[in-house]
């Protein structure tokens, strides 16, 4: 078990090092920062002095080592566009994205799993057919279109919900939250629905097909033959056996929700990291882009690590202790 954790941790570190290298390469290949900082009018001595000041005259690997050392401490330098430390900028934006993503992920699981179980158990009911048909729409419509449609219906025509922004927020230390104000909560509704819809239908369809698969197995038939109640057969035995693939996909999808909140945040002008990233790309704000890249990768790596640990919790067959296989009696 411990060896396994260490091995997974080492792999994670390798992945992060590779991502760090890519992020670092952005500085070298997406425009020359010195040219950008000096503006139109400069001479060679000014250029050399600035390069020395920024450490850009040193060999490549020293620069990379510096970048990594700073990045590990959360220091990604100063934003070209905003002229403020990147970590401060991101820290401002992080709560908005995380709140939106976590609510969307929660919705996707809390609604998608029961719907998947229902459509798996009651295959032929009209409600199942309805869910499946609607889910096709969820899978096939692009996110921005769903967002715009929701805005049109609920913000423009009905005027019930705000069409952009985060509403009023409350400050908790450096974290800002929209959970405690009415306008904050109202502002969350449309973006979180937009963001979760694709994942919700994906999870529903996954849970459904896994349920159908598991319900055909011998141990479910045998559980019925043992006279267990339907509730125990369906939720204790069948659902739990669908969890390994569901955890895998749900974990990856949580990462995807955080990473691809970009589109939703743009549609709803949600002041999160996605919007920040889009703005940074238009301004070629490389420090912010590099930091964003590293942060999102870090989130993915952490989620994958947690998913691997969850496998262990769910499936006893993966646990290393398999010393006690008995002989034939």
């Amino acid at each position, binding site marked *: 078990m411990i060896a396994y954790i260490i091995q997974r941790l080492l792999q994670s570190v390798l992945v992060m090092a590779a991502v760090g290298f890519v992020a670092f390469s952005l500085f070298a290949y997406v425009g020359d920062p010195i040219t950008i900082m000096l503006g139109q009018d400069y001479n060679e001595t000014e250029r050399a002095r600035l390069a020395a000041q920024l450490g850009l005259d040193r060999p490549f690997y020293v620069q990379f080592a510096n970048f990594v050392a700073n990045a590990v401490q959360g220091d990604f330098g100063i934003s070209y566009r905003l002229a403020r430390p990147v970590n401060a900028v991101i820290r401002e934006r992080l709560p908005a994205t995380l709140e939106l993503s976590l609510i969307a992920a929660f919705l996707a699981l809390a609604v998608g799993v029961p719907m998947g179980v229902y459509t798996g158990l009651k295959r032929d009911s009209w409600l199942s057919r309805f869910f499946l048909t609607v889910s096709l729409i969820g899978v096939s419509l692009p996110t921005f279109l769903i967002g715009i449609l929701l805005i049109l219906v609920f913000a423009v025509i009905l005027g019930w919900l705000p069409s952009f922004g985060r509403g009023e927020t409350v400050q908790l230390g450096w974290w800002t939250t929209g959970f405690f104000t009415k306008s904050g909560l109202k502002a969350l509704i449309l973006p979180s629905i937009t963001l979760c819809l694709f994942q919700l239908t994906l999870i529903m369809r996954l849970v459904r097909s896994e349920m159908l698969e598991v319900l055909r197995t*011998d*141990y479910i038939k045998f559980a019925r*033959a*043992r*006279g267990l109640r*339907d509730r125990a057969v369906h939720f204790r035995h069948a659902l739990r056996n669908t969890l390994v693939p569901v955890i895998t996909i749900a974990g990856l999808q949580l990462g995807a929700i955080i990473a691809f909140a970009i589109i939703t945040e743009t549609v709803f002008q949600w002041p999160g990291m996605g919007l920040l990233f889009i703005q940074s790309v238009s301004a070629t704000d490389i420090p912010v882009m590099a930091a964003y890249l590293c942060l999102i990768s870090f989130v993915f790596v952490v989620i994958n690590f947690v998913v691997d640990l969850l496998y262990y919790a769910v499936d*006893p067959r993966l646990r290393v202790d398999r010393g006690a296989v*008995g002989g034939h*009696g």
Partner: protein
Amino acid sequence: MTSTRANRPLLEVRNLRVEFPTRRGTLVAVDDVSFHIDAGEVLGVVGESGAGKSLTGAAIIGLLEPPGRIAGGEVRLEDKRIDNLSAEHLRRIRGRQIGAVFQDPLTSLDPLFTVGQQLVETIMTHLDLSEAQARSRAIELLREVGIPGAERRIDHYPHQFSGGMRQRVVIALALCAQPRLIIADEPTTALDVSIQAQIITLLKRLCREHGAAVMLVTHDMGVIAETADRVAVMYAGRIAEIGPVGEVIRKPRHPYTIGLMGSIPKLDRAVARLVQIEGAMPRLTAIPTGCAFNPRCPKVFERCRHERPDLMPVETNHAACWLHAPTLTEATRG
């Protein structure tokens, strides 16, 4: 033993018919099957795959896979009809009054729960016991089925047991609420030959000790000969012959049974070559009119091609074969 039954049988199946509606018409997988099992008795049900023996077992405990359904006849347990009960009533009978053992012990147990958890939940579903009581009962059962170190093994997961050991756990699960009848569907087919005999002996001994009758579904005549009191031979969804196991093996009356016995090698007699029944069992979509066995039967005559024989008494056995049709005067005797 069976000729003078004072009491009602434990299980009585009358004219059972199982159908599978398909797009191309209805398939009759079990057709007009009647038999009974007395308390404590072992009835072997033997036949080729597709003869309907497993479906008969599944129909009795109400676990036919849809779209399969009971289309006629009745199943009585201790003289109460159970084939028309609600799903919830049937569930309470399963495990409590009729236990089941399936073919493949490797897949019968839920891999995510310890054998103890699975025993305890089954015990607590059917018996009014506390969790601690259920657990000590579970340990006792594991000990009874011959699992060494039961106190320790109870907290192990199925993958930590060998195939034979898992089938022992499955038998413990089938017996844990003291059912009156065990339906064992090919309980040894998936096991190593060296372990088959152990499991059969164990099953038989435990059922005797617990006073449970057994319906032993198998295609292995050897297992039947060793274990069963009576045997029913099934062919194409019907019972071809039924009778005390010694009689059926020594003096089979139905030509199909005769062929079946001839195809078993015997060690004590030199047989030039094993007898083989020509042809194959018909598909459910193409069961011939008259006796289903008539195209393969060496003794076929005109009547077999038109009329379907019911079971007719032949000394101690019953055989569904016109060879044993009573003469007209005898027939009126009833």
